[in-house]
């Protein structure tokens, strides 16, 4: 049964008529055209679909669009502000923290979420916070380096 659902998407109020039991991942990709959020497994095990919901990193394959009613959703497309890359995005470029780049949006969104929660995060905490994001190309070390340097930059900027 369709319903009108509204939520903030990348800072903009968004409203759509949709079956609320549809998976957020596919609503973002299909209905709203935000294809930066990737499908990797559909069961919450790879992390490539992570978005921020009210600043929390959440696997969008495992929530329905109904569940984000009235909430704020940020996807990889909405992370940069006024054309400025987010420090985590910048650090990913700087540290070459990607190869094929398919896991990258999920990695960045998860890291951005970790840094909101814990601005003085340690390297070990980054490793355990990123543990459930999978990368097949093996960019792991560069990803950790990137998140660590973004954390430093964000703290320094405060």
């Amino acid at each position, binding site marked *: 049964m369709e319903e009108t659902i509204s939520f903030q998407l990348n800072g903009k109020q968004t409203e759509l008529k949709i079956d609320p039991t*549809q998976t957020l991942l596919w609503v973002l990709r299909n209905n709203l055209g935000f294809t*930066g*959020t990737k*499908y990797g497994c559909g069961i919450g095990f790879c992390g*490539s679909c992570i978005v921020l919901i009210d600043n929390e990193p959440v696997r969008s394959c495992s929530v329905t669009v109904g569940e984000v009613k009235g909430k704020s959703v940020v996807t990889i497309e909405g992370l940069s502000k006024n054309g400025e890359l987010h420090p985590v995005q910048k650090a990913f470029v700087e540290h070459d923290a990607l190869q094929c780049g398919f*896991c990258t*949006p999920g990695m960045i969104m998860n890291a951005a979420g970790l840094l909101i929660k814990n601005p003085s995060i340690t390297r070990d905490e980054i490793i355990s916070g990123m543990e459930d994001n*999978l990368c097949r190309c*093996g960019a792991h070390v560069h990803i950790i380096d990137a998140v660590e340097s973004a954390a430093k930059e964000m703290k320094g900027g405060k």
Partner: protein
Amino acid sequence: MKNNKTKTQVSKKNSGRRGMERRDFFKLVGGGVVIFFLPRCAGDPVPVAEPGKRSLPKDYNAFLKIDEDGTVSCFTGKIEQGQGINMALVQMMAEELNVPMEKIKMVMGDTELCPWDGGTWGSLTVRQFGPNMRRAAAEARGVLLELASNKLKVPASQLVVNDGVISDPNNPGKTFTYGQLAKGKKIDKYLDVKPEPENYTKYTFVGKSFKRPDAGAKVTGKAKFTGDMRLPGMVYARIVRPKSLSGKLTSVDYSEAEKIEGVKVVRDGELVAVLHENLVVAGRALEKIKADYSYDEIGVDNKTIFESMLKADSTANVEESAGDNEAGFKLCDKVIETEIHDPFLAHAFIETHSALASFEGEKLTVWASSQTPYPLQDALASHFSMPLNKVRVIVPFVGGGFGGKSKNQQAMEAARIAKACGKPVMVIWTREEEFMYDNFHTAGVLKIKSGIDKSGLIKAWDYHSYFCGTRGAEIIYDMPNHSITSHGHKEGTPRVHILDTGPWRAPNNNTNTLGRELQIDRLAAAAKMDPVEFRLKNLKDQRVIDTLKAAVELFGYVPAKKYPSGRGIGVAVGTDVGTMVAEIAEIEVDMKTGKVKVIRIACAQDMGLCVNPHGATMQMEGCLTMALGYTFTEEIRFEGGNVIDRNYDTYELPRFSWVPKMETIILDRPDQPPHGGGEPAIIAVGAVICNAIFDATGARLYQMPFTPERVLEAMKKA
């Protein structure tokens, strides 16, 4: 460059042989200076053109073009799947043409714009492609100098090039840019090259590190992978599948599914697909389909397959042999026999197979996550009986390939469904489909018997590989008596591999490197020698010796007083596509649980000339990290045609906390031709960890992967 012969091709006869009239070609690509070339190694077969069939020359599979605006483009059917080849190629071109790197554009993987290419695999791109692309660039430069010389009325030899600008030092006021020279020109040259080693010493871009050019698009979500494409009127297809690989469709009832609004079901023979403009709805409708299948009885599973390989009636090819093993064994003081089992592995790239197919009038366009756009174009044209120039394949960004995106089933499915329903169709395999219909790393068995004499020299080496080939099994040690036999499928017998198999990053080299290096290690222990010293004593390939020494130094390896030493340090060497690797690793074994943690790993690599050290180092680290999966957890379990591991919940990939401290070194070999770098470091990790586990516990493991249970079991036996 003096050995390069070129000829200008304008005659009708010749351009016809290449499949297209010259003026048609320029219509397609615009004006400018174009150099065709053939990236290949000495001895590789030359692809032969099929007259009139190809829209671009088939016997030259790349070309380089200087545009009227000074842009230098290289058109190639190779694709970029994360391995960073585009950067290395850009560097090489910038070098040879003396233009800023921003002026260079790689156009890859579009069958309409790029010439034919067999596919991207085997770390071949830089190795084969690089040198001839460089020659083509040199040729282009020659043409431009010639043009400038005519305009300036001075001999070409007197001119200099700087950042894409040609000038005469005696008359510095008058200069010509490449763009100015190419303007209004339609010059095409065909480079006939005898591949030969290059002198790489004087280059400035090459050998320096550059970061990947596509990172900006990839960190913002702007990079478009196949599944991100959209076309007006496009529908998503979900495909009706049997529960097991042997299933044959006997009946299907889709009346319930079609009751869902907007759902359509189409059938093309065995292929039945549920269509909807919304993928989720298509998926829900799929669940409503009642399909019956007949299944063949397949009595093999992931445990019994190894036995069935050894029992199978197979062919035996002796691939390499010397001396006389029988006589050699008589000289041996100690003889060791080893049998190794290596399971099926999934490619498990995070981007599942995807394709979008669209028929427009007479023309079919397919976007696909593929490593082989041209073979796909061929397959589509032949399936639909269409001329090749009416079939266009485009490969957008690819989310990892590792050899697994070469068969293109998903693209054929998308095209067949698009034909059946008359709309553009997107197929995105689910992870569960991926784990069943992808092709897998080839499971295999090795049996090795070898021996040493009293002084610790290897006197006999009898090596047998069953159903997994011998890549990486080459003789690099001094083995006066040896034979390497490959046992494979015999025509007319049933297939032993239940699952579809295909290349998986350095296909089965990890199997063979494990085999050889585990056996060598057992010989070292039998000789009561330190495993590094034993190797140095027996190795004969100088490049491997140098690479091992580099790894020893990098790791700070100190010889053990006895072996096993209890320190948990292992060593292994290997060779792949001309590249040599040596790895030394330190591990810790939890004696209670059998869990192994890798503390650090040092990897030395001799890859000849290294074009982009930064990119090569990333590839090495990527290989070492990816390899932790096949070493510790990855194994496809199956019963008959039914794959048990269907997602990442039970098929576990390496995670952040597993990654050890990695130290890498690339031997400086500027005078050598470049060899592959995308795969070699992956081959020795299983072996180095196997040997380190032995050093830590005295236990030997003979079956991949080294799960805690297997480690505990081996420790009990030790």
